[in-house]
């Protein structure tokens, strides 16, 4: 690791000021992407701004038809949350599949969403559920938030405060792991809301998380794994590496999507009528 200055602000405002003041500053949440990269000397921020001492950035709340999750909420907290398990079991399942138990004890929702790793799990949930990213400056709809691999709509001094997830009638997440890294080779989040059905895919895309309109159309006719039988997506633009070709990933997207729908169908319907969520 290169030398850096460590900061521990106690408010979001202080943290934002530090980001504004130092061009080469990085936020530190769980640290499970940044610290390994820094250990390899592949990142050299001059300033690290540790968010852990800021109150109010962590916690899970049911607000109307949405679940609001603080940016510093750990994966394990989402996985174990009764609120999430009752209302959005697929999201709890997703959180329980990130990394390993020790990683889930440190890694945070905000860190994952801010990083937008093309093989991370959370982006699929945000996009499929139509979540809203709430920052210290504004609210950003998931549709507008993800801008490509590792790129987001966040401005340099913008800090994620929380993410609100509209509750879906039915949702499912299935992940086919890269056996070595445990990141998603292909992860598919399927969400059925009264207004729409969304299918979001992580891990496969060269440019990060994406939706599959063809699958969504098919599922609108009937929300069943059978509706996806034989459907696949084009391989072009998908990741291709030593772990699997783009063709393999394209095929997996179909298979895993079917399984995600099956998982969604199996979960009992959540007894919350849902409507476009605004102003939470």
């Amino acid at each position: 690791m290169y030398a850096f200055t460590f900061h521990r602000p106690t408010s979001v405002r202080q943290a934002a000021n530090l980001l504004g003041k130092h061009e080469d500053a990085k936020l530190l949440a769980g640290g499970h992407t940044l610290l390994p990269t820094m250990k390899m000397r592949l990142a050299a921020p001059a300033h690290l701004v540790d968010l852990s001492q800021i109150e109010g950035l962590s916690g899970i709340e049911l607000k109307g038809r949405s679940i609001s999750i603080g940016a510093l909420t750990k994966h394990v907290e989402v996985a174990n949350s009764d609120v999430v398990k009752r209302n959005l079991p697929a999201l709890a399942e997703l959180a329980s599949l990130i990394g390993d138990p020790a990683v889930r004890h440190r890694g945070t929702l905000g860190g994952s969403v801010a990083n937008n790793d093309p093989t991370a799990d959370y982006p699929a949930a945000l996009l499929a559920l139509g979540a809203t990213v709430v920052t210290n400056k504004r609210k950003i709809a998931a549709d507008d938030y993800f801008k490509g691999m590792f790129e987001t709509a966040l401005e340099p001094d913008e800090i994620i405060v929380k993410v609100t997830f509209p509750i879906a009638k039915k949702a499912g997440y299935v992940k086919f792991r890269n056996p070595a890294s445990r990141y998603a080779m292909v992860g598919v989040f399927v969400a059925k809301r009264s207004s729409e059905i969304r299918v979001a895919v992580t891990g496969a895309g060269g440019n990060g998380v994406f939706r599959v309109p063809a699958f969504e159309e098919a599922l609108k006719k009937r929300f069943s794994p059978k509706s996806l039988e034989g459907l696949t997506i084009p391989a072009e633009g998908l990741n291709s590496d030593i772990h699997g070709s783009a063709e393999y990933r394209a095929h997996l997207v179909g298979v895993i999507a079917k399984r995600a729908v099956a998982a969604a169908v199996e979960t009992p319907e959540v007894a919350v009528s849902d409507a476009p969520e605004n102003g939470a």
Partner: protein
Amino acid sequence: MPAVAMTVNGKSVTGDVDARTLLVQFLRENLRLTGTHVGCDTSQCGACVVHIDGKAVKSCTVLALQAAGAQVATIEGLAPNGAPLHPMQAAFRENHGLQCGYCTPGMIMSAIDIVNRLGHDLEDKTIREELEGNICRCTGYHNIVKAIAAGAKAMQGQPAGQQAAE
């Protein structure tokens, strides 16, 4: 150099550290607690697992400064100064859950964390899934799984204070 203070195995400790010092370095080099090991640099092998505030974490992926004010427990704290072995330690020995011993401290700390989270009656399948962050190259995991199942049961009768020496 910034100062850092925390509680390790029940004792208050302080030290001046370079900001880039990892918790595992602080434990091994400053405190000479060398039972916590480093086996990889990508946060995967789990040889460095310790507990921070009662939860298993990989001490190679935490800065010492991030642990300021925290309660840290390491393998050395489970049976300090010749105290009787923690039931999980005893179970690893009884079930031959270790060979070279290098992954063992991390395994035991993860195992106790599994029990703390999931209770005393653990199925083999659960244990295997929960061990995804701990790599052992010697044992083929067979006896580790047995040891954790047995250790989990043995921890049942244990006084709460000894669940882990936080």
